């Protein structure tokens, strides 16, 4: 059909099998880690519980990290303010949930299940809208300057945290999950928390949506090109500014969604919750390879699993397990699991 050859003859591969294995190596890390842990834990039902919980935790982290990897990798912006969107998303979501639950179920002990979806949407709308302003005011002057990005987004983070205090007060807000998302499904000695199942479904859906968007449309290409040479992208007739705003909005909205999910997981939210999760989120993004949604996904799963396995086997080491994992992976692949760009 199209004369566009997918692969030129000149770069034909010498050992297809070796090459294919090498290409699949990042993806194989997850099952390999799982298999290694099986004999180590000894107890199959404990292993299943830990593994499922770790994977689900990974999905939740992924939702929070996915926006960052988009923005961080594709637009080359180090957004420390991402944590602020997580917090704001959680607070907006909480307000909506508490308000709706009050309407739907006056006097109820827990939040109402039906309030969750509207809350997520509201959180995404608000954080997305804030993302527009954030991009225009805070990020735009500092494209391409990592250091200033760190500073200015840190500033944004502090301001956002303080504004949360102004609007919601200094107290932490409890978010008791609805009963339907509380407790676990128990099979023999294996327990799978219901909320984590919910997180898996949501996380997978977001992953697939992002993957398709970036793989099947020009958008991913445009953003990567724009980071390297925005002028040239404009000279080709694309409105790079609009595109960057768009990406940033999506990234922020995902952070907001992540905030609601995380708030429901923790069942309590504070203004600092976003900041507290940032180091973990950065580690995930780095492990994955900047800007790669797929890598971020794998990184999040690895981090989730690793924390549970080490926590079970040698809790003393659980503390450094993420950092250890990151250093190990960077030693093996200096640009993360799935490097996107040679920056």
């Amino acid at each position: 059909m199209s004369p566009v050859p997918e692969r030129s003859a000149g770069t034909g591969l010498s050992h297809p099998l070796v090459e294919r294995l090498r290409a699949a190596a990042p993806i194989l890390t997850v099952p390999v880690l799982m298999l290694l842990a099986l004999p180590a834990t000894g107890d199959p039902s404990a292993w299943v519980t830990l593994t499922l919980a770790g994977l689900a935790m990974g999905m939740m982290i992924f939702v929070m990290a996915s926006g960052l990897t988009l923005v961080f990798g594709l637009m080359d912006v180090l957004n420390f303010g991402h944590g602020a969107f997580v917090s704001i998303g959680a607070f907006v979501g909480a307000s909506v949930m508490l308000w709706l639950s009050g309407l739907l179920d006056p006097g109820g002990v827990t939040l109402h299940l039906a309030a969750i979806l509207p809350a997520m949407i509201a959180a995404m709308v608000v954080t997305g809208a804030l993302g527009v302003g954030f991009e225009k005011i805070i990020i735009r002057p500092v494209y391409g300057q990592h250091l200033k990005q760190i500073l200015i987004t840190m500033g944004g983070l502090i301001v956002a945290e303080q504004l949360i205090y102004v609007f919601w007060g200094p107290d932490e807000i409890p978010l008791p999950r609805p009963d339907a998302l509380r407790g676990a499904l128990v099979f023999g000695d294996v327990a799978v928390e219901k909320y984590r199942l919910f997180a898996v479904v949501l996380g997978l859906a977001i992953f697939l949506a992002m993957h398709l968007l970036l793989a099947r449309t020009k958008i991913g290409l445009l953003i990567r090109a724009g980071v390297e040479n925005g002028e040239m992208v404009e000279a080709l007739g694309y409105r790079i500014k609009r595109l960057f705003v768009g990406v940033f909005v999506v990234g922020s909205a995902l952070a907001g969604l992540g905030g609601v999910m995380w708030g429901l997981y923790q069942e309590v939210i504070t203004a600092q919750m976003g900041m507290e999760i940032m180091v973990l989120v950065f580690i995930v993004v780095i492990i994955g390879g900047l800007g790669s949604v797929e890598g971020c996904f794998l990184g999040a799963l690895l981090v989730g699993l690793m924390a549970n396995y080490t926590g079970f086997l040698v809790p003393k080491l659980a503390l450094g397990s993420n950092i250890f994992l990151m250093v190990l992976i960077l030693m093996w692949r200096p640009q993360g699991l799935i490097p996107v760009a040679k920056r």
Partner: protein
Amino acid sequence: ADPIKIAHVYGKTGPYEAYAKQSHVGLMLGLEYATNGTMEIGGRKIEVIEKDTQLKPDQGRALLAEAYGDDNVDLAIGPVSSGVALAMLPIAQEYEKVLIVEPAVADSITGENFNRYIFRTGRNSSQDAISNAVAIGAKGTYVATLAQDYAFGRDGVAAFKEALAGTGAELVFEEYAPADTKDFTASAQRLFDALKDKPGRKIIWVIWAGGGNPMSKVNDLEPSRYGIELSTGGNILPALVAYKAFPGMEGATYYYYEIPKNPVNDWLVKVHQERYQGPPDFFTAGGMAAGIAAVRAIEKAGSTDTEKLISAMEGMSFETPKGTMMFRKEDHQALQSMYHFKVRVDPKVDWAVLDLVRELKIEDMNIPIRTK
């Protein structure tokens, strides 16, 4: 006459802002209550100077030095965080002025880092841990602990363990998790494994400061399928909301506004309700105790001279929202009642209600002296 100057040096801004607010409100109410609303002692007006440590130890030191050295305050009260408090202790000694610590909890404030200018109205970690042990410990009970893996958690468990030994309960397992743990599945699994085959009552006692919310995480894994219960200490009202998931849970708390029955607390609850449209909380009570202690000490000493204050305060008993407190001579720690509670869920109340099971009086708890 010269006013009496009191500095409130505390972390008004930063992560403990909520605690700080309560503490200050309590302090002011305490001064008001103790002076019968005159805000005067012996004809001298009380003047309170607020200073914000921003939760930074270096700021705490500088501000306390400023309060003592430049503002010439007669005594100081604060701070919220133990780290800041520990940094401030030597300043009190250097300036030879009294510092009433409230509500920082580290044992070492009235323990190894103690000096004779330090008094504390707040409870220390040992008081917390021991009261909990006394509350839940009984013959035939098996307990496992879940704590943060750093000094605070380990010391708390150590004190808890010691006190538990006297109750006939058996401590079967200690689990320590990193302070920033997000996923408690592994810890829970280990705790369950340690307890599930034990006979009798099985309890996981959690001591955890700050985020992470391990209680609800462990509970989500359904410990009840092995007949395991959870237990932990009290907390501020916003945090008590989450306790609604644990009806019937037992533990010991420092304060809950409906528990203490005494005139001071009645006044506090009434006035607080009027002025702030809500009941007083943990640190309101603490702040008030500190304010009352200051007034009573100056009254008793008849002056604001440091040496006179110290001798007046050592061994002094005073009435607070938590009943009678007493500054122990040896380490200047205020001994006080704690409350064994049981959680009740009342749909009309936003948070979990703590019903009193038993007041743990000063003499029910053996709080070790750890000064050097």
